[in-house]
């Protein structure tokens, strides 16, 4: 009988699960770490060997987490196709093992991973677009996931139920306690991807694969606000100043302070921006971006 401690057993099995390689590589690495031989630790039976038993856990570990990523990044999986998506998802899981008790954080660094691992040295514009888009779609989907579980304005009855005219009147009288909706996120992308997202969603709805003649976006800065109204996801394209302004509000600046910070950053007059911002404010409240 072997005398392995609980700590040793757990370290060994976890190493087998998370290190790179096929099962033989994994067992070798776990042996190098812990000096534990498979057969001294795991029982074999006539029907199933110790190796096959460990493989159920090792293979299941990756498949399960790839499934979770596929669930969170369903648009990306549809866009890339299942085989390519699974390849990147597996590489991500092996490179960045989960450190959280919650699967919710599993995909937190996926967009960054895709951006860092994209092929370099491409000069063809169309190819470059193809290579750039996965990380852009992943950032959009990850942000959407955050918006869907964040605190929202659903319990704040006055937040979005006033008409534009009522909002404007209220804002003119008092705009001192305007705040960003807690579920609001703003992102900047290198491509305007909303049209592409709609095409992908249409394919998913029709259970179709992506068509060859997909209309891909042309590279240019894109500013988006992602939020939620009555539990429904909403995404809005923003002007650059609106993106900056909301960003400052999210960081906790008052609306008036955010206007000043934005004007400073854009090197425009604060007065000019104030009139644009005040005109936009009632709309921004109705869009679920800000609330009073």
């Amino acid at each position, binding site marked *: *009988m*072997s*005398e*392995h*401690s*609980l*700590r040793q*057993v*757990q*370290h060994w*099995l*976890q190493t087998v*699960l*998370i290190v790179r390689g096929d099962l033989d590589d994994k067992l070798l690495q776990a042996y190098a770490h812990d000096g534990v031989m498979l057969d*001294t*630790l*795991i*029982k074999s*039976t006539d*029907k*199933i060997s*110790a190796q*096959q*038993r*460990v493989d*159920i*856990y090792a*293979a*299941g*570990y990756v*498949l*399960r*987490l790839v*499934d*979770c990523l596929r*669930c*969170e990044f*369903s648009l990306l999986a549809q866009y890339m196709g299942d085989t390519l998506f699974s390849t990147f998802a597996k590489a991500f899981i092996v490179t960045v*093992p*989960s*450190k*959280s*008790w*919650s*699967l*919710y954080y*599993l995909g937190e660094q996926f967009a960054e991973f895709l951006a860092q691992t994209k092929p370099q040295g491409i000069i063809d514009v169309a190819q470059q677009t193809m290579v750039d888009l996965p990380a852009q779609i992943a950032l959009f989907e990850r942000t959407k*996931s955050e918006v*869907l*579980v*964040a*605190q*929202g304005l*659903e319990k704040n009855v006055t937040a979005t139920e006033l008409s534009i005219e009522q909002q404007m009147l209220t804002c003119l009288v008092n705009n001192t306690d305007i705040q960003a909706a807690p579920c609001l996120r703003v992102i900047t992308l290198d491509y305007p991807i909303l049209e592409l997202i709609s095409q992908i969603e249409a394919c998913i709805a029709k259970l179709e694969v992506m068509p060859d003649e997909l209309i891909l976006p042309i590279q240019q800065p894109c500013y988006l606000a992602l939020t*939620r109204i009555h*539990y*429904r*996801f909403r995404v809005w394209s923003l002007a650059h100043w609106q993106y900056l302004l909301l960003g400052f509000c999210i960081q906790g600046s008052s609306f008036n302070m955010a206007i000043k910070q934005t004007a400073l950053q854009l090197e425009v007059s604060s007065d000019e921006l104030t009139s644009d911002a005040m005109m936009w404010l009632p709309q921004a409240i109705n869009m679920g971006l800000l609330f009073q």
Partner: protein
Amino acid sequence: MTSYIQKQPFAASAIEQINPLGFGLGLRSEHYPYLMQKPVTGVDWFEIISENYIDNYGYGRHVLEQLMADFPIVMHGVSMNIGSSSALDFDYLEKLKALADFVKPAWISDHLCWTGFAGVNSHDLLPMPLTEESLKHVINRVNQVQDFLQRPLVLENPSTYLEFQNSSLTEPEFFTQLVEQTQCAMLLDVNNVYVSAYNHGFCPRTYIKNLPLKSIVQMHLAGPTLSGHCLIDTHDKPVPEPVWELYQLAQSLCGPVSTLLEWDANIPAFPELVAELNKAKTVLAGQIPHAPVQNNHQQGCISTPLVLAKEKL
């Protein structure tokens, strides 16, 4: 290794005060639209995966809040990591407790397993070596968790695909001593008994008879998949005949115990799940459905899929 702290048993009467809830289903995001549109019938209570509602203030929590008004809720977790030799994660336990303050669950359960070590989470329910060392370790940690949550913990027997050479206790022996020393309760997953018994070649009926029967407060039912020589706990099939037979035996030994049907992949429409759950009532009336164990001829069966409740809309 942590030292063993002998504590006073946690409120010995707490388990006895738990009343059977009847027949329940797992709350899954696929069913949110149905549950919010129709008056919900055919189910007595719901079980939630705790981790899917911690730090979640979206539609899922809204649905949960609506259901809480009409149904008892049980919190079933997958990340307590009770068997790990790493320190207990009190940030997690803090959040679990906060969710319990909101949900006011009938009880809180997790699994007799470990999920990760040294900060890593495998998101799998990994098997314990069933040794005296493990037993002392788990007793110590269950005591700490029960002290922290101020309620008895309910632990489920997992499906296992491997056994350790150094195991010196059977799972029923482990559970019996654990329950005796901590006054925790047990969630008996009869499908997991069937799966583990098949994979390791022990008698599932003897296993059930040797459990601490008085401490079983809940039973899980699910459908596994045969993959090669191994039964995998896939939670994606109807409950097969041998699992119904074990369920009938367990209920006859324990008296009426709350029943929950688990279905976590390829999830059918809500009324179909209710129909499957209703079979449990016919089993208790003496009729066993003739459903075969299903075979998977493709690669890539996933055990115990831990489904991330994806927020829809």
